[in-house]
């Protein structure tokens, strides 16, 4: 097995999630060059993992920007629900008025017919 072949596999096997072929393991155990490269990858991974503990100071205005966005969306939602509530009330009122007008017309028609019969 050649070092170049092993070097291609090291970025995958270094985190232990990818099972290394026994031939590769044998090669690395007997090859200082590949061992050195594996050490470099391990060191790289450790350094990357350590970055996780580092929390950067957010740029000024980040928090207020986020909160302002959320507030704007919340207000838009409230306005929308208010409008949709008003729309429902308007439609409901219209329906009641139409029904009342219809009922009134029926009553008036009924009275008219009775008067005609009485005459």
């Amino acid at each position, binding site marked *: 097995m050649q070092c170049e072949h092993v070097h291609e596999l090291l970025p995958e096997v270094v985190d232990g999630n990818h099972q290394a072929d026994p031939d590769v393991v044998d090669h690395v155990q007997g090859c200082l060059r590949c061992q050195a490269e594996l050490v470099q990858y391990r060191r790289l991974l450790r350094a*990357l993992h350590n*970055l996780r503990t580092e929390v950067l100071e957010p740029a000024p*205005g980040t928090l207020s920007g986020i909160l302002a*966005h959320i507030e704007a969306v919340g207000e838009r939602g409230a306005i929308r629900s208010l409008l949709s509530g008003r729309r429902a009330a308007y439609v409901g009122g219209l329906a009641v008025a139409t029904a009342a007008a219809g009922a009134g017309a029926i009553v008036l028609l009924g009275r008219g017919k009775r008067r005609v019969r009485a005459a």
Partner: protein
Amino acid sequence: MPTDLAVLVAAAVDGDRSAFEELVKATYADAYTLAFRLTGNEEDARDVVQDAYLRAYKGLKKFRGDASFSTWMYRITANCASSYLVKRSRNRHENLDDETHLADERPEIDPELRADAASERRRLADALESLPPDMRAVVVLRDVYDLPHEAIAAELGITEGAAKVRLHRARKRLRERLFPLRAERDGEESAHAV
């Protein structure tokens, strides 16, 4: 998930906006850090993190609680950053060429000659920044934030296989950049069989 956060999440899911604002205050620096690592600059990170929290707010009912709120935010932030970077690359014609040579060949930066942790950290941050955004996203999400390949692929809109290939290339590039002397020397040496 810490109890305080869990309580805030539950209240926020029930529609308590002030609870969501408290959640933002407790987690935004972390989300900003990820956004900065993915975008490489403050202004873009701020835009990404604003967009991410807005999406989280709108999609809070979808949060199932099987992962921590922070992990959920990482995924949303990664997704927002990915969309943002695609838009940015269209506007700025950023060089995404995978073959760009990034190795820093200055001998004085050989890590074996420098034990200083802060310096190493800075060099690592620089090396990450020098990666093309698509590679950087995968290596940051996997090796810094421990997201599984499946989640990374889903948030970046790529296949799991593509995510693994990018990770492989990114690790290789970072190694070459951080250990330039060895990489160069290894390149010059001919292959030898054992």
